[in-house]
């Protein structure tokens, strides 16, 4: 067991745990960022330099900032008072069951044991990634481009401020549904 791996795994899992348990949303988001950086370092450890840096660029540079903005836009900057969880026991039980089953499957798997213990570091050339993207994976690439455009437009449209205040309508519709 590698020492560096242990540190990185601990950092990642610990930060993720903090992100899911802290009270203040901004702290959660910052911990998520730390966890994602830890993941990127794990990618580097695995030899996927390109994927690691892309991870940092996209998650830290964009997604984390986006989440922080969303927190501020939904007035989440202050630590909430009162209950922050919802049906804690059942949720934890299910999550623990999922983890238990997964860990059981991983440890008990015979297929994993059949794989070689140590493999040489695969040489990952960025050029090869580029060639693949432009060759074999060009169709998914186009699809991703389309998806990103659609997501951009969709996000803008959804988040655009509506002209009239729909709050009254919302209350109406909610009260209306109460009636059987």
């Amino acid at each position, binding site marked *: 067991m590698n020492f560096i791996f242990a540190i990185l795994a601990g950092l990642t899992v610990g930060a993720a745990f903090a992100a899911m348990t802290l009270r203040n949303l901004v702290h959660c988001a910052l911990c998520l960022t730390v966890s994602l950086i830890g993941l990127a370092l794990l990618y580097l450890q695995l030899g996927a*330099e390109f994927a690691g840096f892309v991870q940092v660029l996209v998650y830290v*540079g964009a997604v984390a*900032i986006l989440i*922080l903005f969303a927190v501020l836009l939904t007035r989440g900057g202050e630590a909430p008072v009162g209950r922050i969880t919802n049906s804690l026991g059942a949720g934890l039980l299910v999550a623990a069951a999922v983890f238990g089953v997964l860990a059981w499957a991983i440890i008990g798997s015979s297929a994993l044991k059949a794989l070689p213990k140590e493999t040489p570091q695969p040489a990952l050339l960025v*050029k090869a990634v580029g060639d693949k993207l432009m060759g074999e994976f060009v169709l998914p690439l186009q699809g991703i481009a389309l998806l990103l455009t659609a997501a951009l437009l969709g996000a803008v449209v959804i988040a655009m401020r509506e002209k009239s205040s729909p709050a009254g309508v919302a209350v109406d519709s909610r009260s209306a549904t109460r009636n059987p």
Partner: protein
Amino acid sequence: MASLDQIFVTLKEQLVQLFPAVLQPYVGVLLSIVAIMAVFPGIFALTTVVERKLLARFQNRPGPNRVGIPLTKIRLAGFGQFAADGIKSLTKEDIIPRNADRKVHFIAPFVLVVPAFLALSVLPIGRNMTALDFPETGLLFFFAIGAATELSVFMAGWSSRNKYSLLGAMRGIAQMLSYEIPLILSSLTVVMMVGSLSLVTIVERQTSVQWGFFHSWHVFTPWGFAGFLLFLTAACAEANRTPFDLPEAESELVAGYFTEYSGFKFALFFLGEYLGMFAISGVAISLFLGGWSAPFTFLDWVPSWLWFFGKLFAFILFFIWLRGTLPRLRVDQLMNLAWKFMLPMCLLNLLVVGVWHFTAEWNELLRWSLATVLLAGPYWLFSRSFEARFKPRTYRYAADSPAAPVVAPVAPQVPI
């Protein structure tokens, strides 16, 4: 001359030889990092004084000229000022607002400074002189690390619990996010042409000799020139330099996101900002201005690192000059420029690079004129449509807004 060129490399090798073989790689990295952490803060110190003096001259006043070597009469034309400033900020009381989020408030300056040093360490500052060489992904590493700046700005602005700080942080993040896109797109042109993300490779590609006497820097091509200008503009914005210094506009927001910082942490922010500026200048130099290579072949005898630092100083002076000359943009102008002018131009430049790549067999003159026309025509069109946006704006409430029209009560129409 080659020995002078490689003097630091050989020095490092010999120093490393003194250690046992197991430790050698770690010592090598450590030495490089120490060198980086010594040299660039030194340049920072020098820059602060130079900037103050130059700005003073621009404004027709003398600037700092008193502080020299203490207890002597030597004044060094005021170049001892940085030491005085440094001592002052180290000894000042560190004030933290009572409501502030102390942990985040404490971490923020480090989140700014550490990535700045990391970004500096991938720059090829001379032949065979790169502290952290990522042979595959140097440029990507640089941009990935740059993302930390935004995080730091947010942390500083949010944790201070100060309206000005938060507004400055929001402005800063919006600006950096917006200008990161043209920044990356304009540097992608170089990546496309060279076919590598490694800054070392990119610089080496520019050392080839063209027409017998000068090196083929990328800035000497139509796309390179356009890309360089776009990169420079975006770099100004990324580094929060005038005319894009809205996040810390002192006349509007006191000092932006680091309003609530003082003492050493303020100095760290200051340092981080300048290091970021050096780093982005260094990338501009590596991408477009041939990195450490001399402009002309007959100047090759000058050591490569001297060229790099000379260009870096030219950039610093250029930024100071801009700060002394240009007024600040408005927020809407800033965003318009990024999304409606720079982004289309960057995309167009990518297209032109493609054209340039596929017309390699053509007559040079034809190729040049095609690329130039492709760039200059849309530039003319875009900039024409932009002139209107920079005109003075009438504000909604400043314009005549009479009181709400009095609605005369309408008598009910009774059918007779």
